[in-house]
């Protein structure tokens, strides 16, 4: 209960602050009402409290709060009312309305305004209704939520008064729910309670569920039946939300996998090059982000919010350039020998890791989240963090962009031509080595921008890429090599399956199960989900 009090107090302060400028002149009109508290017995005091509450002005809340806490005094000399706190031998006084400091005074110069338990209750409900009537809808909403948590039957009246006046639908809904919670806690009639159960059942969240479970276990007869029904309904809807939550987590994981795998879908899927250094391209993208942020911190802190947008093209260029270098320097000599390519690129991955380790050190580097990447919002019963959401959006954008490049540009046309029939493409005048290098650079560059995104949710260390390489290959192979849509579906399927397994098997075992599942799946369909069939003449 004291929590509720201090919370309401806080709200009052907030309301007071919000209203400061406009309400300054009103304060003086309230002063006679406050000063009236200095006179009269309990009965009069009760009426005076009612008068204060009836103003609906949150500025009176601190005075009421102090009254309830036994901290409201009046000065004997002029019957002025103050909030007084013990300070040394005397009291520190502050104005009850403006809360400004009003100096100190001796112990005998002031008298406490007395309250009894009955009055304290009156004060409490007055306070509740005051904030429930506050001009700022946010404050009203918070007050209603506080009442919901407290489920204080005393608040029913003020809630009803507030509901009658409320104009904001959302706030009214919460108020009604708070009222229902309070009704269930009161000794009201069964009819009222049944109605309240209805209201809570329609909320469908965990708080309502625990209230209703409490009611189910403590009530009897019709109310108990209704509560049981409501509990079941909520349980069902919560199960649905749980699934939705899992699907969201799955999509989120899936888009991380998609980002990591999509570059590989080009180099491995389209070109048939086994690039074991793919993970390192991702890692380099993440380090580019780190470097960009460091430069911004030291030279232009104002740009920090845009650091990711600056890092994206740079990461694409750096990783892409390294990719082109690898293709020209090593891979092109090994075309048609996939196993050798695998070994050579693994060696390159070792070199790149060690190079990054030598330059930046072996430990994790700090990459900050811009404001728009941090925080979370609620959607129904789901909590969605902004960084996850933006990564999902980003993954889809990258995928769509890549599709556009491959399907709609002449570069994409050349790439497809070269991979389908190299000699024919060459004789049409396409410079096939150039296309090879550019395609490989494209795949590596995309890995680089994936690194920018992953730097927001993962530790940036030289080993960053190692964690993704096996998963990426699994996604590409599972989805069907040479098919970008397969990669999309594969990433999302694996992400969702993983997250659905986790509650039952734990994170590690879930991952193992997924790996085993893929191993078995590849046995069954060696060419993945979306295999391209054809009259492949192999001998």
């Amino acid at each position, binding site marked *: 209960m004291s929590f509720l009090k201090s919370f309401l107090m806080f709200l009052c302060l907030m309301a007071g602050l919000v209203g400061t400028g406009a309400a300054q002149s009103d304060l003086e009109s309230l002063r006679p009402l406050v000063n009236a508290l200095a006179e009269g017995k309990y009965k009069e005091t009760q009426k005076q409290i009612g008068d204060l509450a009836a103003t609906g002005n949150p500025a009176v809340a601190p005075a009421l709060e102090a009254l309830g806490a036994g901290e409201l005094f009046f000065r004997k000399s002029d019957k002025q009312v103050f909030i007084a706190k013990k300070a040394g031998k005397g009291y520190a006084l502050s104005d009850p309305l403006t809360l400004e400091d009003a100096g100190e005074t001796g112990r005998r110069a002031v008298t406490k305004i007395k309250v009894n338990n009955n009055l304290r209750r009156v004060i409490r409900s007055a306070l509740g209704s005051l904030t429930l009537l506050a001009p700022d809808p946010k404050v009203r909403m918070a007050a209603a939520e506080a009442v919901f948590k407290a489920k204080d039957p005393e608040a029913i009246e003020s809630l009803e008064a507030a509901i009658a006046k409320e104009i904001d639908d959302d706030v009214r809904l919460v108020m009604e729910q708070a009222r229902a919670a309070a009704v269930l806690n009161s000794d009201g009639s069964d009819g009222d309670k049944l109605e309240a159960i209805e209201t809570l059942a329609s909320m469908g969240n965990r708080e309502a569920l625990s209230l209703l479970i409490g009611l189910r276990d403590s009530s009897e007869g019709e109310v108990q039946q209704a509560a049981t029904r409501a509990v079941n309904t909520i349980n069902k809807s919560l199960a649905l939300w749980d699934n939705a939550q899992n699907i969201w987590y799955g999509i989120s994981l899936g888009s991380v996998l998609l980002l990591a795998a999509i570059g590989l879908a080009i180099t491995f899927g389209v070109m048939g090059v086994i690039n074991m250094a793919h993970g390192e391209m991702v890692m380099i993208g993440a380090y580019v982000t780190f470097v960009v942020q460091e430069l911004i911190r030291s030279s232009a802190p104002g740009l920090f919010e845009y650091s990711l947008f600056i890092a994206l093209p740079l990461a694409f260029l750096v990783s892409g350039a390294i990719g082109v270098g690898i293709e020209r320097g090593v891979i092109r000599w090994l075309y048609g020998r996939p196993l050798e390519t695998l070994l050579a690129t693994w060696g390159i991955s070792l070199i790149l890791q060690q190079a990054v380790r030598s330059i930046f050190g072996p430990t994790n580097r700090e990459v900050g989240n811009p404001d728009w990447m941090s925080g979370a919002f609620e959607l129904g019963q789901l909590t969605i963090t902004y960084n996850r959401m933006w990564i999902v959006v980003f993954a889809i954008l990258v995928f769509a962009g890549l599709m556009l490049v491959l399907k709609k540009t002449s570069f994409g046309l050349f790439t497809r031509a070269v991979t389908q029939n190299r000699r024919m493409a060459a004789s049409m005048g396409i410079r096939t080595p150039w296309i090879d290098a550019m395609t490989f650079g494209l795949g590596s560059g995309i890995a680089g921008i994936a690194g920018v995104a992953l730097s927001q949710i993962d530790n940036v260390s030289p080993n960053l890429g190692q964690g993704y390489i096996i998963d990426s290959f699994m996604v590409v192979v599972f989805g069907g090599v040479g098919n970008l849509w397969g990669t999309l579906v594969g990433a999302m399927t694996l992400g969702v399956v993983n997250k659905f397994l986790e509650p039952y098997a734990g994170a590690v075992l879930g991952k193992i199960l997924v790996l085993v599942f893929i191993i078995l799946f590849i046995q069954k369909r060696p060419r993945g989900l979306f295999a*391209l069939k*054809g*009259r492949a*003449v192999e*001998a």
Partner: protein
Amino acid sequence: MAKSSSLLYLDGVSVSFDGFKALNELSLVIAPGEMRAIIGPNGAGKTTMMDVITGKTRPDSGEVFFDGTVDLTDEDEASIAELGIGRKFQKPTVFESHTIWDNLELALKAPRGPFATLFHVIAGAEKARIEELLELIRLGDKRDELAANLSHGQKQWLEIGMLLAQDPKLLLVDEPAAGMTDAETAETAELLKDIAKSHSVVVVEHDMTFIRALGVKVTCLAEGSVLAEGSLDHVSADERVVEVYLGR
């Protein structure tokens, strides 16, 4: 011809790849001891037909029977080869890092299990047979050379030798004369005719001179089914064959 008295019996066989019908209700019957030449334009389904017979491709529908009783659609490549169907590929494929001798030894009819081969010791009869085959395919003086070092035509011959070493009942020979000189082509025709005396043979070929040299019944495939069948003269007189394949 009845299924029971045939060596190879295909009826209503269809195969499609992503909507493209490679074989369309193909029916073909080969009698024991028969030699048959198959012609047809590119994409007529000749290679796919061989793939179906040897178990590489499963037909979507239709029957494929060997020896009248064995359903080939239930068997895999290895057991079909064990049943006695040998195949020579369009592109000659021999084991390039083995010697000619080893190529023939691997092909020689013998138990095919891992443990049988692990403890296998080459016997006198096997050596004699390999010598005989080396003679036949005229590679006797190159027996210890790697197959990789052979010319294209020699590889074709080695592959035919390997086919014979398997001692199959039915030989499927895909374009044996491709890449050969005229003289070599004529010799190959003679060789096949020799083989046909003791085996059933199906030859796919584009070279009309070669087909004429064989002098056997001809089947012309087009778009996955049989267009015409009969002697070469009969088939080449057929209007439709002329239109789709031979040209005017």
